[in-house]
């Protein structure tokens, strides 16, 4: 039992590191976005030479900020939602609903992952204008998001099932 707890704790740490990595990469993307856009404004209005690649890079970076941040948001439970109806239910019903949401969201993440991989295959032969890299790099963001949601939400759902009597809905999460 103790061994199982330590394995779960290790898993929690690993998954939290993945979440932190998502926020880190998205933060770097935001800093690069702001810096390069600043360079674009400077180039356009001061140097009179617009760096045209910046706009395409910005449209690529925003996908990573949006989708990696959104995946981390699933782990952190920060997405906007309406919990008042669920909160009005008895504790066990709330738990079942929360597990159902975790698993459905994980399944949706799985579909997103699968669809993303398909979109990446479609886009491999098309290059992003000005950047000359495959379009697949744009869809990689939503593909990663799908995989991460599958991981974060699926794992939380499974752990909630395994420890059904050990957690309370008032805490909202299982720290995983």
């Amino acid at each position, binding site marked *: 039992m103790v061994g199982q707890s330590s394995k779960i704790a290790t898993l929690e740490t690993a998954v939290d590191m993945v979440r932190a990595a998502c*926020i880190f990469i*998205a*933060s770097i993307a*935001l*800093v690069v*976005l*702001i810096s390069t*856009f*600043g360079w*674009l*404004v400077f180039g*356009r*209005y001061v140097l009179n030479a617009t760096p045209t690649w910046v*706009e395409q890079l*910005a*449209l*690529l970076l*925003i*996908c990573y*900020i*949006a*989708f*990696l*941040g*959104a995946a*981390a*948001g*699933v782990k*952190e439970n*920060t*997405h*906007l*939602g*309406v*919990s*008042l*109806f*669920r909160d009005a239910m008895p504790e066990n019903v709330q738990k079942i*609903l*929360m597990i*159902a*949401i975790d698993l*459905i*969201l994980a399944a*949706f993440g799985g*579909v*997103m992952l699968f*669809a*993303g991989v*398909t*979109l990446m295959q479609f886009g491999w032969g098309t290059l992003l204008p000005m950047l000359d890299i495959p379009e697949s790099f*744009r*869809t990689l*963001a*939503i593909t990663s998001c*799908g995989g991460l949601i599958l991981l974060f939400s699926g794992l939380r759902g499974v752990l909630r099932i395994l420890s059904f009597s050990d957690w309370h809905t008032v805490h909202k999460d299982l720290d995983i």
Partner: protein
Amino acid sequence: MGLTILLLTFGLFVVVGMPVAFAMGIAAATAFWYEGFPMLITFQRATSGVSVFSLLAIPFFVFAGEVMLHGGIAARLVKLAAALVGHLKGGLAMVNIFSSMLFGGISGSAVADISALGSLLIPVMKERGYRPDFAVNVTVTSSIAGIVIPPSHNMIIFAVAAGGGISVSKLFLAGVIPGMLMCFCLAVAAYALSIKHKYPAEPFPGWGEVGRSAADAIPGFITAVIIVGGTLSGVFTVTESGAFGAIYALVLTKFYYRSLTWDAFVLAVTGAVRTTSMVMILIAFASSFAYLLALYQVPAKLSDLLVSVSDNPIIILLMINLILLVLGMIMDMAALILICTPIFLPIAKGLGMDPTQFGIMMLVNLGLGLCTPPVGTCLFVGCAVGKIKIEEALKSIWPFYLAILFALILVTYVPAVSLWLPSVLD
């Protein structure tokens, strides 16, 4: 049948507590599947929905607001507001409202406003004998001015949800008077309550102090001037203005005010990432959801339904406002802008309402929703900052609700409130 599946799936998942963005995504994927379209379209549209040039302004606005929040600008604005209006009856309440008008105009975020100003002003108000619920209610309700006073990222979301064709610079201009009107109405309510509860006025610090406070706060204002002025003058696009404003805010707080530490910078960046991604994922899946709403001709059907109740524009606008108020009580603003704009905007246009006026009406209305239970982000944050229970705040919040409702009625039925300034300056 497809529409029923779309709405039922969405409604069911929202009710059981699924995050709204994913509820929209799952509902859209299910409807696409039912209609025999590949589910892939949901994700293709989600990606293309995010890769929109004008949306790039959102992370810039949000980042500038976060830098202002963590970079010590709020204290300077409070100092200026205290010097200007602190000597009025209920002085600190007036300072609170006036500070919100100034800070909201820079950060564009109601929650940032409450976090920054509430943590500064609520404890001082309590110390000076103001009731805690009064202090919280003033802070919470005045914070929503930032949603309407430019620059506001919610205006960008509205412009995108409207499907293009709405000028962001016109929206910026249109929000100025309604935002000030809201603050004025709130100040009247706060003044009346201050007389009733005998809240004190602060001593006037003298014009020298007013000048010094203004000189200290003005560099902060320039952020808003860069963003709004750059866009209005046509020198910059809204996205370029946002980027320039964000960099200016960074340079200002780091090198001029010297109040932005490395930790504060990290907080600002990660905070901006979290807010941006939360909004962007909503936009991503709302893009698929709105596509299906249009495919099923929901705006036309709802328009027919509303017209069947009454063909009087005043009644129809009242009904739209009531629907938005009810939805605003249970759902958050960005999601509702994205869902309701494609539905209600065509109806409003059909009544002869200017889309810009409709946008401002919607922002004021949904802003009020942020202060109402059971789901009111601003109310929750305000109560947490003021360390009081929500029930305690609700007992005395009604005068402030009425003040905002009065402003909402004027914005809805008097086009000049929002359209006069754009017509003069555009």
